[in-house]
């Protein structure tokens, strides 16, 4: 029983973290209808940022996170204005975005390999605190609980942004129909640029936490992170950021329960869930209803 409880609680902690990791990818797709195949690489860069800040300058991961929020927001906005308006003017922006961001992913991975080498690196898990948390008689690492809390706050702030601010409402209008939003006077490019910046910020925050949740990081880990993120958003609902939370929880719980009871099959979880969802409910668990809510 204790093993089951540990797996369930760990699954929830991991699930919320996975939601954070994937939500930026879904947010960018929801607003711009582009698939950022370099999303996992931005997560990887966030992780290496945390590693180098701590190992070289002794900077706490939380301070690094704040710096990365600023840097990734600027990079995201610049990247948007540099490439995305042109992409959206093309006949098939979704397809072209795949090719473009695949290229960006390869460039980031190659540059990261040159900069950081190929060896995996880790951060001491006590960098996020040394206390362990007790729940149901089980001890959970402080880094997991802190990553969970940071993820909840970040996802909550995204929710507040989308539903409680004028810019968020404008963002949702663009998500519903870009042309109609533009016709109603919304500065579609400005709002989309900020949305893309926020998507990268979410990736950076997840990246800062990644070494504590997923172990060693290395430049080519980005592809795996993109696949995981993609699976989660399809499970939840493609284009619906809030559905990602559901997708993340389903994924986290499934993965951790599989690791506990059928460990050799654990890594098949994302693919099996992906196939099942595509066969049974292609619009994802929250699908259309939640999107329009």
């Amino acid at each position: 029983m204790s093993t089951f409880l540990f797996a369930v609680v760990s699954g929830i902690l991991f699930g919320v973290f996975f939601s954070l990791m994937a939500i930026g990818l879904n947010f960018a797709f929801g607003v711009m209808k582009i698939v950022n195949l370099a999303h996992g690489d931005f997560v990887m860069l966030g992780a290496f940022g945390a590693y180098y800040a701590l190992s070289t300058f002794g900077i706490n991961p939380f301070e690094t996170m704040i710096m990365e929020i600023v840097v990734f927001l600027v990079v995201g906005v610049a990247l948007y204005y540099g490439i995305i308006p042109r992409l959206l003017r093309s006949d098939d922006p979704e397809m072209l975005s795949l090719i473009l961001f695949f290229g960006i992913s390869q460039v980031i991975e190659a540059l990261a390999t040159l900069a950081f080498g190929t060896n995996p690196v880790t951060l001491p898990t006590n960098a996020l605190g040394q206390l362990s948390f007790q729940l149901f008689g089980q001890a959970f690492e402080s880094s997991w609980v802190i990553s969970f809390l940071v993820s909840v706050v970040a996802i909550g702030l995204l929710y507040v942004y989308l539903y409680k601010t004028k810019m968020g409402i404008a963002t949702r209008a663009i998500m519903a129909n870009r042309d109609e939003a533009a016709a109603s006077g919304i500065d579609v490019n400005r709002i989309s640029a900020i949305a893309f910046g926020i998507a990268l910020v979410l990736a950076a925050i997840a990246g800062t936490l990644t070494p504590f949740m997923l172990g060693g990081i290395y430049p080519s880990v980005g592809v795996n992170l993109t696949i995981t993120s993609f699976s989660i958003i399809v499970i939840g609902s493609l284009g619906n950021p809030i559905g990602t939370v559901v997708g993340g929880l389903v994924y986290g719980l499934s993965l951790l329960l599989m690791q506990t009871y059928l460990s050799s099959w654990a890594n098949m979880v994302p693919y099996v869930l992906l196939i099942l969802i595509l066969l049974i409910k292609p619009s994802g668990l929250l699908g259309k209803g939640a999107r329009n809510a």
Partner: protein
Amino acid sequence: MQSRFRKGTLWAAAALSGSMFLAGCGTTTSAPASGPAKTKSPAAEISIGTLYASTGSFATSSMPEYQGLQFWINQVNAAGGTYVKAAGKKEKIRLVSYNDQSSAQTATSLYNQLITVNHVNMLVADFGSVLTSVAVPIAQEHKQLLFDQSGTGTTFFTPNNPYIVLTSLPTSALWPTSLANYLISQHYKNVAIVYCENDFDQSQDQTLTRLLAKAGITPTYNNAVPTSTSSYTVILHNMAATHPQAVIELGYPNNDISFMQALQASGSTFPTTFTIFPGQLPSLFEKNFGMKGLNNMFTYPAPPLFTVQGVNYGMSIAQFEQAFKKQTGSSPNFLNVAGYNTGLILQKTLATATSLSQKSMRQAVTGFSGSITTLDGKFQINNQGAQIGETLPVGQFTVSNGKLKVNFMS
């Protein structure tokens, strides 16, 4: 709206499949380290074909092994070449190499390319069992002798396949002998094992559990995980729940690092905790966990952590360390040794084979098997090509006077 979702989903699925495919094929345009050979057995040089992984999960191990092989080639060519008995003179070595990016799928096509397009004289496998596993059937099909550097999976060596020789490590079936002996000597009853699903680790697990069973020990936990596993915390928690006296993790370097990170985070301690690669790549593990993190950890120490006595072929470990540092600027690790050792086996093969046919080279290897000892140990193969001359002791890291030391347990 739903059709929009469906379209997006399908696009993204196609994209990820495409990206996986393209990532796998990314190296097909890479130029070889030197131009590809167009004819077999050029008179003035010997072509050696190999793969390396400069990115991906095996880069950590593949690149140092490749550097070791390159070091040997540089040494040989600087000396005017190596003696080739079939030609009756010294010939230089030309390396034809491609980057498989740690992808077995990419490696499959590149091994084929080395044999059928580049027509290399000698074929050398990339690091480890995963990237070697695809080379074994290809080499056998083309009747090309595969010099397997470190793919130690027992399934590679079968009576009907004469086209494989393991050069730089004993077959996986032999690795855990010393570990099992140590565990039995400690009278442990509760042993927990986690291993990765690949030939290298699976065959070790099979041997270890078989030897323990002979001593009446049944592991309280013995489960496989995918080789790509990066988070071991829940697995470690489940192992700890069985109150083991020894926790054994069998994986590749990335697995060992993730496992040790989880161990450090959990604060759990066990009388014996064993992982494979700290003994082969101590500096990598020390960089990640410090001496404190390695203190008391059990492992398989390998040269240069110990010195092989009675070396009668090639450099001694001290000479190698000095020359390697001079050439590359960095201190060698075991995988550098393994790559260099492969070069020595190629060199001895060329010096004794009466022709450059693959069968003749295989006969030559059988002929000098058991008679040479390199800095890596005694080179001896069985009739299936598996290396059985080398042994891997069990050692325990300790910190003494601010230095990391290894105490040998067997």
